[in-house]
């Protein structure tokens, strides 16, 4: 735990990680050549990440595949040694005091389980009780709470290999939170889950954050998770932070464009409205993009209904997903941090 209240719970400064790997030469003799005269290749996974996360925050840490998200998380958990820069988690340098740091964190990997595959779910919880030295009464209390909250009563004594993915993930969440850590790292926690299971997980994360004040770092490709849970996002690309701030800000910057979707009563070729750009049209339905700062939606609606015979009109707000997709492909041009 951090000693003083003024210091952010998690601090990284110019954090770097470079992986060195032996390069494989092609051809049948390549492997042999690699054995005697290895050629090394450096790959920069994290190229100077500085961020501060306060106690009780719920931060979405997002970026395309290979951006360096998992590498950062692994350094924060102390299992990877940074190549440069500084970091402190609750006042501890994780890789120097891996075990001490481990007491402060809970981790959930969507693609990997920490549960014993062949044993009933509850056996994994018992092992964790011993690992963290949780007193019997506190263990009983937390377990009961989790069983209720995550509805695990029906499968607590079922071998993990027989559980559905949704059940297994609930078990993994309970396992990560059993010792009530102040920090929770989530790596793709909803991957492969159906909508109901996703919602159960999101509600759980929301509750532990709100009720226990658990600081959560969420890494995911499912931006609906982020939109639902996080106020702040840190966007990383090619090992660097390209945006760090409230979701609202990125939505405002990129979300100035709205889409006016018009459905005509009869086939209409090349429809046009002043002040809006035709994005797509199939004759019956047309999509117009306009800037909400310079154009008023009601004027455009009036304009289009005067010119054409219209059956239906809708205005679409931009989704975080679309914005992020745009940033991944076009690059981000705004300010990294708000002043």
């Amino acid at each position, binding site marked *: 735990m951090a000693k003083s209240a003024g210091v952010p719970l998690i601090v990284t400064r110019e954090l770097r990680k470079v*992986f060195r790997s032996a390069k494989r030469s092609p051809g049948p003799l390549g492997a042999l050549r690699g054995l005697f005269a290895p050629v090394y290749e450096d790959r920069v996974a994290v190229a100077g990440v500085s961020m501060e996360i306060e106690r009780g925050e719920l931060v979405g840490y997002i970026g395309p595949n290979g951006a360096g998200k*998992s*590498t950062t998380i*692994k350094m924060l*958990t*102390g*299992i*990877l*040694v940074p190549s440069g820069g500084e970091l402190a988690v609750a006042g501890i340098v994780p890789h120097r005091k*891996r*075990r*001490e740091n*481990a*007491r402060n*964190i809970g*981790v959930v*990997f969507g*693609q*990997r389980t*920490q549960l*014993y595959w*062949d*044993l009933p779910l509850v*056996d994994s919880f*018992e*092992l964790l*009780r*011993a*690992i*963290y*030295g949780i007193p019997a009464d506190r263990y009983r209390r937390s377990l009961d709470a989790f069983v209720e909250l995550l509805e695990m009563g029906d499968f607590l004594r079922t*071998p993990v290999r027989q559980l559905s993915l949704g059940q297994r993930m609930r078990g993994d969440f309970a396992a990560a939170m059993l010792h009530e850590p102040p920090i929770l790292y989530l790596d793709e926690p909803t991957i492969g889950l159906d909508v109901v299971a996703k919602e159960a997980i999101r509600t759980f994360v929301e509750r532990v954050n709100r009720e226990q004040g658990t600081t959560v770092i969420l890494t995911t490709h499912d931006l609906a998770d982020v939109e639902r849970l996080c106020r702040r996002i840190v966007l990383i690309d090619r090992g660097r932070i390209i945006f760090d701030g409230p979701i609202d800000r990125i939505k405002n910057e990129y979300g100035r464009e709205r889409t006016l979707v018009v459905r005509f009563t009869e086939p209409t070729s090349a429809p046009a409205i002043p002040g809006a750009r035709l994005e797509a049209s199939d004759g019956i339905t047309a999509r117009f993009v306009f800037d909400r700062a310079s154009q008023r939606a009601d004027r455009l609606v009036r304009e289009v209904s005067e010119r054409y015979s219209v059956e239906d009109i809708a205005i679409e707000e931009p989704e975080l997903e679309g914005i992020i997709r745009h940033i991944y492909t076009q690059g981000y041009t705004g300010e990294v941090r708000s002043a």
Partner: protein
Amino acid sequence: MTALAPYVEYARKAFAREATYRIELLAEIGSLALRVYLLRALWTALYTHNVAPMGLPLHSMITYATVAMLMSLVLEVDGTRVIREKLREGGIAVDLMKPIVVPFAYFSDGVGQTLVHALAILPSLLISLMLVRIDVPPAATLVVFFFSFALGYGVNFFVNFLLNGIAFWTLETFGLQLIVRWISDLLSGQILPLAFFPGWLGRAVFALPFAAIYSTPLLVFIGIIPPRQWATALAIQGAWLAATAAASYLLWRAAARRIVVQGG
């Protein structure tokens, strides 16, 4: 003792997990009697056409081979297999995120696995001993044998740990595993008494850590190592245990600094 609690629990969970593989255990129990019987037949046939090599009478040889086989049922439970799997599948990352000494946890897991197999073979052990009569040594010798066996168990674990530890660098050790396993079986005295090795090789094999695994406890059992040499024999085993444990510790420290967790 609370510091030990997590590791005791690791052993208990490994025990429970291993006990779920019922078919595997049954097959092992079933094959034991057969293997013991075949060993006796083999050595008896070999002895009928040759004079007793090294002056080792047939009944001593059969005792040696039978006890070696029984020991192997416990020693071949590869408690370090878990390291290899965790490295390949990246599960080691999850373990490293726990406040535990990871190699110690794996050792405890190995002990739990061993206990399951040791208990499971008890009934067929009795049957085997009825099929093949072995020389049962005096109680004092038995006590020293079990002590020596425990030291050998430790050496075996750390030799395997070192071997699997290479996976930290190569991530794949299966081929190497096979070669070393074979060499280890041969040089540890599991298949043949080490005294059968000729000349310089015969002297060299006693200077390797493998001899501490099978040969020393077995030679105590059949009385080739007499009581006055017990202390020396156990001391040498203890030294190998310390050396392999220290090497494992150094390897783990070096590996922990360069862990590349698969994926991500």
